[in-house]
């Protein structure tokens, strides 16, 4: 593949067709690199190859998705660098906690400190098992000395609290898992 940096067209636009030889080479590559799932979109061609899943591996499955340069930004980047340096006690990054399909996750809209009760010593706003209405206050996030009430965005049952009292939290941090009312 020639790197023609004088050519101002993005590379992906140049190759629109795939042939059998390329597909065979890809299959070989997937075998050699022990890739579990492979997806490729090029022009009109979309190719997905999935190897028969045996055991569930502990490390990240090598799932590789290649898209042309025109795909919107929302796609996860290839082999994204895993997290940042070994920091002690940073606010936990908002990792995607694998939630079953029917649970709704309430996320923090602001950065701050999480408090489960309206004031120290008083009972928490909610606990697992409680049924809440949409708009009901679930917790407080304190930011710059202001106590911000965080409301449920759906009605349902609190299944799990995902943070600890007094924990620093970031924007988008998962706070509660709610089973929405049908």
């Amino acid at each position: 593949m020639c790197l023609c940096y004088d050519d101002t067209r993005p590379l992906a636009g140049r190759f629109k067709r795939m042939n059998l030889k390329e597909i065979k080479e890809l299959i070989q590559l997937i075998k050699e690199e022990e890739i579990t799932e492979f997806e490729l979109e090029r022009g009109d061609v979309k190719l997905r190859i999935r190897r028969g899943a045996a055991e569930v591996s502990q490390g990240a499955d090598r799932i590789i998705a290649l898209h042309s340069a025109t795909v919107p930004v929302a796609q996860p980047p290839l082999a994204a660098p895993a997290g940042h340096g070994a920091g002690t006690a940073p606010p936990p990054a908002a990792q995607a906690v694998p939630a079953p399909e029917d649970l709704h996750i309430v996320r923090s809209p602001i950065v701050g400190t999480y408090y489960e009760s309206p004031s120290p010593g008083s009972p928490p706003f909610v606990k697992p098992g409680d049924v809440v209405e949409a708009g009901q206050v679930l917790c407080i996030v304190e930011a710059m000395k202001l106590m911000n009430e965080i409301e449920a965005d759906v009605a349902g049952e609190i299944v799990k609290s995902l943070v600890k009292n007094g924990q620093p939290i970031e924007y988008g941090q998962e706070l509660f898992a709610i089973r929405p009312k049908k």
Partner: protein
Amino acid sequence: MFKKILIANRGEIALRVICACKELGIRTVAIYSDADRNSLHVRFADEAICIGPPQLAQSYLNIPAVISAAEIANVDAIHPGYGLLSENANFAEVCETCHLKFIGPPPEVTRLMGEKEKARAAMKKAGVPILPGSDGVLGGEGEALEWARTVGFPVIIKASAGGGGRGMRIVRSEQELPGLFNAAQSEAAAAFGNGDLYMEKYVEHPRHIEFQVLADQYGTVASLGERECSIQRRHQKLLEESPSTQVTPELREEIGQVLCKTLSDIGYVNAGTIEFLMDQDQRLYFIEMNTRIQVEHPVTEMVTDVDLVKSQILLAAGETLENVLHGPIVHRGHAIECRINAEHPEKFTPSAGKITTFHPPGGTGVRVDTAAYAEGTIPPYYDSLIAKLIVRGKDREEAISRMSRALGMFIVEGVYTTIPLHRKILADEEFRAGHTDTSFIERFFARNGKG
């Protein structure tokens, strides 16, 4: 010395500040929006906090979110970078109130320099040459004529209430003045509902020359020389260099002295840049001051061997300028910077998306400041700067040859970049001869058949 600093910025400048902190043994906290989750500045900071969705107003410009992050991470100081909140005096005040050291000048100084008329008046009073102009609004044709005679033709009449070229007329002689004055007045009244006009000397084909300063908290100021940034497109700088071919050692010394005294009197602290226009007689006129680190700061770093960002941190921590600079400023060689944007090199349309190949150049005298990487994505929400390519040579000729070589070895695929444009600029005869001014790019496009 600070133990932990929060960087209130993103992209290459956030990474730049992180580099300086790492070298000083200071812990770093990055903030990021959802769109920057996989950014290099997040990767290389010791801690990182997501503060909002992609939109600037809800993330990087969201002062409560930034301060809240600083509080939960327990930082001592905030470095604002450039752009964003770096010249926001309110933000600097909020930092002070929250006992967070803002790495920059005091809020009242930022405020002073932010109000153009006040800054001009302060500079004029201090003896810094400013663009001559009327004292406020023109009372009529007659007054306009008097001012024009004092200031000297050509002059430019401008609308007080607005810009964008409307209510603006360049007047080159007494005969033209009444007609153009009235035209400007009607246009201003129609466009802004206010026909008030003022006048300034009009500099034909000016060069853009700016001076870099550093100041400690004890009143000592140093000038680190100039950068020439005349190559601009729509007021956006494309290329910068130091020294300027038009600034003599005497002029550099003279302006340097005046600036140091003036800024000391004003109570300036930390890094700053004073912008001038230079006319065809090599006279400088003050335009405005930027109270922050600038995008093109590496140009000065390359010719003076002073780490400006480290200096900012040390000065904010209370160090004296003497201890920060370790001796007099010595200028060596010639440096050029090209701002590589993710834009089509001819149409200048922004090109967001995934970078598939990224190979920056290296070798003697080459520096690349970037937060881009292969397989990384350029989000569409922020500016299009993806890399700064800076070279230093023993003289301008070597710097030009080095920059041409380096541009030719800079490979970026997956998005459009302005690298091809820069290669053409570097090959341009007028550029090589040093005939640069703020209308260079128009002439360049005319020569190269572009718009």
